[in-house]
């Protein structure tokens, strides 16, 4: 049991990175972007497509992944989120699902094949072990935590963060106070896309490959982790990701992959049915119950 803890936390840090993107968009816009995983996947495929033609190291790859993901993110925002009114949150979710299918097919048309090799950003060092952790996993965990710290600083230490928090509180009041609500919403979307690009780059770098299943995997794991932690809560996203990673690793070691997936879905269902605000209910009863009510 204790032996599986490092592996579980390592897997969980990937989930945490993905969950932060979902929770950020939901926390500010009260919307869920189901096309998130597919957006990141298209960014990764785009970078591989460019690499096939020109070559390039991990840093250049990151840059391309970032650019493509942000551009696609804006496309998703304009097509699925901007045109729908506040009441039609579920309609925009359905639209984002349709766009997921579209982006996934574009990516596989761009580069067909089951598994495409992806260069590791950490090079040789990623194989080293430090106290049971692979170094690459420690880096992923560090990234997840520092991304959260960065977002905390952005939200509570900058003018932009103040505007975002005003918008979370009340969109109408924020608009009355002269905040450009559509612009802030779009910026949050771009920010989440950029975060997804970095997360995807780290995850496929650690795995050393990317498959056409990436969109589905990233979206489902990100959403499960975000909900376990309490959708809309940043620390919840990290805690939910780590919890999911540990649960999956323990279930897989004990019973195999089918039971692992069964466990994560049953856990998700139980959390939704019994305590929709997830882990965040442990530290902020008020904020979390509001999140569950508004959807």
């Amino acid at each position: 049991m204790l032996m599986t803890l490092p592996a579980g936390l390592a897997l969980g840090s990937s989930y945490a990175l993905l969950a932060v993107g979902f929770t950020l968009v939901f926390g500010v816009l009260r919307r869920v972007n189901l096309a998130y995983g597919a957006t990141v996947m298209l960014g990764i495929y785009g970078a591989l497509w460019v690499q096939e033609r020109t070559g390039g190291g991990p840093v250049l790859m990151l840059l391309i992944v970032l650019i493509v993901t942000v551009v696609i993110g804006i496309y998703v925002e304009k097509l699925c989120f901007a045109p729908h009114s506040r009441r039609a949150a579920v309609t925009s979710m359905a639209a984002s699902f349709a766009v997921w299918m579209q982006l996934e097919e574009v990516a596989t048309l761009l580069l067909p094949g089951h598994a495409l090799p992806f260069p590791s950003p950490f090079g040789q060092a990623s194989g080293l072990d430090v106290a049971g952790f692979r170094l690459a996993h420690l880096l992923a965990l560090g990234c997840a935590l520092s991304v959260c710290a960065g977002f905390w600083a952005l939200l509570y230490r900058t003018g932009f963060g103040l505007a975002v928090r005003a918008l979370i509180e009340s969109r109408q009041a924020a608009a009355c106070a002269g905040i450009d609500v559509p612009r802030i919403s779009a910026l949050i979307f771009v920010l989440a896309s950029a975060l997804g690009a970095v997360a995807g780059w780290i995850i496929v770098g650690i795995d050393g490959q990317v498959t056409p299943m990436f969109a589905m995997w990233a979206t489902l794991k990100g959403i499960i982790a975000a909900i376990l932690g309490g959708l809309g809560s940043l620390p919840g996203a990290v805690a939910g990701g780590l919890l999911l990673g540990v649960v999956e690793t323990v279930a897989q070691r004990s019973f195999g992959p089918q039971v692992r997936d069964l466990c994560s879905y049953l856990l998700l269902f139980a959390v939704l049915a019994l305590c929709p605000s997830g882990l965040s209910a442990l530290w902020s009863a008020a904020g979390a119950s509001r999140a569950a009510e508004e959807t």
Partner: protein
Amino acid sequence: MDDYWLGILANMGLLSFLALSSYVLLIGGAMSFGQQAFFGIGAYAAGMATVLGAVPLGVALALAAVVGGLAAGALGAATLRLRGFHFSVASLAAAEAVRISLELFSLRVVSSEGRMTGPNGIEGFRGIRYLYERGYGPVDFVLLIYGVLGLVLLALWLSERRRFGLTLRMAGEDPVLARTLGVDVRKARIAAAAAAGAIAALGGGLFAHYNTYVEPSNFGMMLGVHGLAYALIGGLGAPVGPLLGVGIDILLVEASRIFHGYRMVAFGGIVAVFLIFRPRGILDERLVNRLRAWAGRAGRHTPDQPAGEAKGAS
């Protein structure tokens, strides 16, 4: 008619059950990503009834509908508190749990011919040959699918004209207002979930007997999402709406082969753009009411024709 078109027709009929299942939940304000689970439960239940229980197909389909309805009703009761996105994810989680449970489910028995038969975990469930053993051909099968589909449509049309349909639409439109007006929103939502589960299970039972072979991967997330998209494109104004959605996808996008290789690029784009301009589908409530008013005016000259009939014909 050749086999290609018969196959398309059969597929359209089977998918219509799933689309109608999503429709019943959608008019009650719930967007389910998990109706494929009841399609799967129905397929296994009906298949096991004819193969292991040796009962007639009609009994097997009724049994599938009951099992699907009970499972969906129980799930509806468990997710009663959830709205919007949280409900969608809960339904998806439950459906995936059902799919994996089917992968783990085996019940092997020796058939009358001495072969092993029954559900066999991830390998699937082979030899659901009830119709083929009795010499029914593809044409009979298509007729059977559309016969059952016609009954479901009739039942939906009748219940929408009665209190149940109105109650459900009120609960979907504004649950708080509906509750203040004395509508039992909880009861309406559980009843809608059970009805939707029974409809999907009926489709699943027919699917199992049409295909003779089912496996858990048939009932993945993509199946349910297609059903949902059909209902959203076709329209939430009347039960024929979802059928329109099935027709648009299968006839325009899949069968026409214009978009060959780009099917999801086309279909995904169509759905996303559609949801902007017609968020409640082609045949939405407004259009249905307009048609009904128009039919009412035309009906004054022939008073023996009820106004609602024009809706079914449109």
